């Protein structure tokens, strides 16, 4: 419990006093800051609504004439609120934060790249190099290669969409667990997140290659 600087009563740790709605100087986790359970699945509308309501109700302007402790609480609460919103709004940063709360991290499997991903990255980059070279040499002859690179692009986009569906399903299954998350599901979450990161980088490189005008 924490004492509210506005009304002096004890309240559950959160950003807002449950008695008087004043700001609390509580150092809570980002889910609690937004009044959410520690779940991976979040309804975006709920997140937006809570963020905007708390942003209004805890805004420093409303406490400009209040006592210094209250003003200070309003500043720390709103900055924590913003950090919580930015972190939890995006499913990937939310998942990374959730892992951190459970003492896990994206890097825990070291630097090993899944073999199939590594192979794809090197194959595609070889094609991209070939593509750039041929386009510079004989721009007119590059259309076959352009088509192939475009196909590759679609392939990656589809894989990323499939990964996002897998991610949502993994979120759901982890949310149903009450106790510590099972290692198997956490491993799956880590695998999806890392594959996604590699494919996103690859997609960015493919799009850069397609956008680049042939050098004269």
């Amino acid at each position: 419990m924490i004492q509210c600087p506005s009304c002096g009563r004890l309240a559950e740790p959160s950003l807002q006093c449950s008695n008087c709605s004043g700001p609390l100087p509580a150092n809570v986790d980002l889910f609690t800051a937004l009044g959410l359970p520690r779940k991976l699945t979040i309804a975006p509308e709920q997140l937006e609504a809570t963020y905007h309501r708390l942003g209004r109700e805890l805004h420093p302007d409303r406490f400009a004439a209040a006592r210094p402790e209250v003003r200070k609480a309003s500043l720390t609460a709103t900055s924590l609120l913003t950090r919580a919103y930015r972190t939890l709004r995006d499913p990937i940063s939310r998942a990374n934060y959730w892992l951190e709360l459970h003492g896990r991290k994206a890097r825990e499997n070291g630097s090993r790249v899944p073999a199939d991903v590594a192979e794809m990255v090197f194959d595609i980059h070889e094609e991209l190099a070939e593509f750039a070279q041929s386009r510079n040499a004989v721009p007119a002859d590059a259309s076959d290669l352009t088509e192939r690179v475009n196909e590759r692009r679609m392939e990656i986009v589809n894989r990323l969409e499939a990964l996002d569906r897998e991610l949502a399903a993994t979120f759901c299954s982890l949310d149903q667990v009450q106790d510590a998350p099972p290692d198997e599901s956490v491993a799956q979450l880590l695998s999806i997140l890392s594959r996604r990161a590699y494919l996103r980088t690859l997609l960015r490189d493919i799009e850069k290659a397609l956008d680049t005008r042939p050098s004269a």
Partner: protein
Amino acid sequence: MAYSDKVIDHYNNPRNVGSFAKDEENVGTGVVGAPECGDVMKLQLKINPESGMIEDARFKTFGCGSAIASSSYVTELVKGKHIDEAMAIKNSAIVKELNLPPVKIHCSVLAEDAIKAAITDWRKHRVTDETPKKAESV
């Protein structure tokens, strides 16, 4: 973001880019990646089987400028070193040389891991070639 002059130099003129021919002997290959940002790095070392000295190095890195610079620098750093010496290279040496900012430290970790992965790969093949029954897994 401001890259240091050394990062820009390695980025614009990367040393030892490419890979060795597939049939080249005594080559160890390390492929590593950063799951946070999706960078992928491949480092190949050509190692003298008698002396254990690193005779040549090649790299291919797909990622940010700092990751490319880190791997380029590492190929220069390990050439002429004994594998035991190369195994002892710490990422802090790369950070210092390239003046990497805190957000790019993971790029130097990646380069350090790549050296270790390449040497481990070379050793594994040697063990397999010489004493097939004692071949270690991983």
